């Protein structure tokens, strides 16, 4: 029994040591990031109502810069799409070596699941996506990302219920792009009534085309 306990302790130490090894990140020039951390850490101590997150939330509209266009009266119609997502940053980690795994679902962000608001129906790879709020997640593979559009909204991103998938589509991936520190989702507008949902992190950019 005593031996067992010792073994258990030994194992525990091994596991903890391994864990701390994988969590530790190599030192890189992150003076700017550290500054952000310091600010956020300080805030967490000084804000009695609610703390600020290390992976801040952001949103992107389609057409791109919709709100600015509204400000300058260059657009009359309503927006078509919006993504609300949280932006984790690499902090020296390698995307598919240190934390994401090929073939395993990823919430395409951090914290709350990433939300896609469809204000006007769009066509994705020949299939109609009706108006509504959806959750977006991704199953990354080496040469393409499978993007799932799911109807289970307002939920923290870890519990993915694939039975509520509305559609799954494949987005091609390009590599060796200029480095992107913070996970980024934006929309691009192409000629005619075409656009793309563009997801980029590290040197990888995935593009999902749609019609509206």
């Amino acid at each position, binding site marked *: 029994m005593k031996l067992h306990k010792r073994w258990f302790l030994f194992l525990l130490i091994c596991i903890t040591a391994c864990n701390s090894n994988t969590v530790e990140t190599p030192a890189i020039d992150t003076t700017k990031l550290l500054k952000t951390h310091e600010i956020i850490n300080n805030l967490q101590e000084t804000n009695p109502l609610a703390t600020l997150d290390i992976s801040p939330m952001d949103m*992107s509209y389609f057409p791109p810069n919709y709100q600015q266009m509204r400000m300058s009266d260059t657009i009359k119609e309503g927006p078509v799409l919006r993504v609300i997502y949280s932006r984790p940053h690499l902090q020296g980690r390698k995307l598919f070596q240190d934390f994401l795994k090929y073939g395993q679902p990823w919430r395409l962000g951090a914290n709350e699941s990433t939300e896609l608001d469809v204000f006007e129906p769009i066509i994705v790879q020949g299939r109609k996506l009706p108006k509504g709020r959806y959750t977006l997640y991704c199953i990354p593979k080496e040469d393409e990302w499978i993007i799932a559009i799911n109807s289970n909204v*307002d939920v923290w991103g870890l519990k993915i219920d694939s039975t509520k998938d509305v559609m799954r589509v494949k987005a091609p991936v390009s590599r060796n792009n200029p480095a992107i520190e913070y996970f980024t989702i*934006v929309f691009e507008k192409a000629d005619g009534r075409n656009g793309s949902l563009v997801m980029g992190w590290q040197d990888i950019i995935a593009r999902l085309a749609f019609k509206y």
Partner: protein
Amino acid sequence: MKIMKKIILLAATIFLGSQILLAQFSVPVDKSPLDVSYYPVNYPSMKLRGTKEVPVMRVLYSRPYKNGRELFGTNIVPYDKVWRLGANEATEIDFFTDVTVNGKKIDKGRYTLYCIPQENEWTFIINRETDIWGSFKYDESKDVVRVSVPVKEVKEPIESLTITFEKTASGANLLAGWDKKTASFPINF
């Protein structure tokens, strides 16, 4: 020579191309990050743990820092002027069910939340126009309801603007606070 020119042109194209890509992806993380508050409070993590409750509403807003500045009654948040109650985009309030504010029934939907701060009183405004930047486009004719409430002083300054909800007997209060000022108004449902 011709080949040289071609190579230079090609190099320039590649360089420019990568610059465009870089520019597109240098979407900076904002100084005033976006945040979301749900009612029930922390609804997404409640749902993760299997709650049977349904979400009633949420606020999407950007959170500027106090950053050592004087805020209220200065040119940062002037009195008697419509304020976006946030930063960047106008603050959005989404009702997932019909609610009542100040005796006025509000249909479920997306709205913009503004505030007119005064020294002792804040006037919250729920307005029909959405997806806009700041309060520059504020259009009073699209107001759904206004509610004026007294300002409360808190001892410890709140560093980043915070909007959250607290449960009441008849619904919830929307609670907003920044620096040493807080104000809340009731939402019934």
